[in-house]
């Protein structure tokens, strides 16, 4: 590994070290492990959204639907089908991904605001199902009466149920696999076609890229990983309610991505961390914490359109 390669990898190494050490340094500065877990889970959601938003140039305002499907998928699997955390995650992810794959062809021809609006509309459909279908989803009260379970490998078992640190590292492993897969894809020929579409859709089309098909695939990948995040979110809370599917939750993901910087790979994670910390701190101070987050968001967008990480990157390179 040459010096320039090391330079390129430096931010990645830095982020991974921070994440690996989180349960140790976070309490030292006044946080707690669950807060870190929350940041990583929502970070995964925002990074998944950003696969579509930042790297394909397509804005979805409906990702909460697939986040919520992943969450209900894991909760309902553990409650009704099979007491296994891993199986639950797989089912949740599968359900979210399938829903996205089926809805995809109906929406990928749309662009811009129209695409965003239709993703909201489909998201609200899932919200109302979760909200109304009391007997199965628990309706407005949410789905309770289940918890995440220890990982049982036969020869060994890891108690992610009671040990917050163990759960954090479990989440981090799933996060690493997901984020690693997305980074891998973005560096592949397929990933480059997405960037081509983001940069100049017309040029991409006339270079022989069937743009709608590629957007569909990008959408499905993005929704797949956001449902992974949703599943982890339900496991973190041992609970899930319809608010996780509400369109304002989709808005939160967009805010996280834009806040952190949607042109950088790690930006949305930073955005999610800021969001989670602000929420944790402000919500104990005031009912109206969201208006402060909103104000902060507006300031960032006005003065640092490339997001928080965009600013840091410019400082480093200049």
């Amino acid at each position, binding site marked *: 590994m040459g010096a320039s390669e090391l330079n390129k990898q430096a931010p990645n190494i830095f982020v991974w070290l921070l994440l690996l050490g989180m349960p140790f340094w976070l309490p030292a500065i006044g946080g707690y492990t669950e807060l870190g877990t929350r940041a990583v889970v929502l970070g995964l959601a925002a990074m998944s959204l950003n696969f579509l938003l930042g790297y394909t140039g397509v804005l979805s305002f409906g990702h909460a639907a697939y986040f919520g499907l992943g969450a209900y998928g894991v909760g309902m699997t553990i409650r009704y089908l099979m007491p296994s955390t891993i199986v639950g995650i797989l089912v949740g992810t599968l359900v979210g991904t399938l829903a996205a794959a089926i809805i995809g062809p109906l929406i990928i021809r749309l662009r811009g605001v129209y695409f965003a609006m239709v993703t909201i509309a489909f998201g609200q459909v899932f919200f109302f199902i979760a909200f109304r279908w009391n007997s199965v989803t628990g309706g407005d009260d949410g789905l309770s009466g289940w918890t995440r379970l220890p990982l049982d490998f036969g020869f060994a078992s890891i108690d992610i149920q009671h040990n917050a640190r163990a759960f954090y590292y479990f989440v981090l492993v799933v996060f690493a696999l997901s984020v690693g897969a997305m980074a891998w894809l973005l560096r592949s*020929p397929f990933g480059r076609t997405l960037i081509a579409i983001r940069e100049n859709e017309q040029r991409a*089309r*006339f270079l*022989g890229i069937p743009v709608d098909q590629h957007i569909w*695939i990008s959408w499905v990948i993005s929704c797949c990983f956001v449902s992974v995040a949703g599943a982890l979110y339900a496991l973190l809370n041992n609970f899930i309610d319809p608010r996780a599917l509400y369109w304002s939750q989709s808005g939160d993901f967009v805010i996280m991505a834009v806040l952190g910087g949607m042109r950088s790979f790690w930006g949305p994670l930073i955005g999610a961390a800021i969001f989670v910390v602000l929420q944790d701190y402000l919500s104990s101070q005031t009912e109206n914490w969201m208006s402060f987050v909103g104000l902060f968001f507006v300031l960032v967008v006005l003065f640092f359109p490339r997001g928080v990480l965009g600013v840091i990157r410019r400082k480093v390179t200049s």
Partner: protein
Amino acid sequence: MSLLRVENVSKQFGSLVAVNEVSMIVEPGELCAVIGPNGAGKTTFFNMISGFLRPTTGRIVFDEEDVTLLVPARRVWRGIARTFQITEVFPELTVRENLRIPVEVAAGYRLSPWLSRDTDTKIRARVSELMDMGGLASKADRLVGELAHGDQRATEIMMALALKPRLLLLDEPTAGMGDQETYDITQLIRKLHREQKLTIVLIEHDMRVVFHLADRIMVLSEGAMLAEGTPQQIAANEAVQAAYLGKAAA
């Protein structure tokens, strides 16, 4: 056997007939120029061949296959590549990246999540070859948006070429260029035509370029085909002189 047959195509925008019953045959290895005054319908004509627009009536046959209703990407796969009157590139990517994308698409890897080391080496080599040919090697890692206009146009031509087209459509390749840049691009096009036997149709306003390059010229005026022939025939054609060359010379 002709490579491209355009049969009586028309395009109507509302009440405006932008292209009116135009036909054209292009033989393999030919270089045809389409000329005509502003608003004559030249770009609209190209747009129908490349799939940007569907003809109101008429048929487009490429290599004995009716492509009239195919979407642009499918026409590219069959071998039709184009550039635009107003440069269409990826301005925030480097020259290398701009070329790599079409090279990968042409090699059939657009959906690949992975490339073998071998393939990667081949693709890099092909990108370098294209940059050398287009005189872009020294700017390989510059963002295309930061390059001079001429280099952006050259990048766009090389991107189209990266697709290994059988028919290359160039919409005013020298538009907005200085004399030196015009000369360079003209030499490049000539080389592609002569050495690689590439079939090219180009729209061009610069008559020096047209007469220097073209085997055959077709003249559009107000959407209709005014004349068609060798450069000598076109230069001698009175109707053309009245409608177009006269104006350009005056």
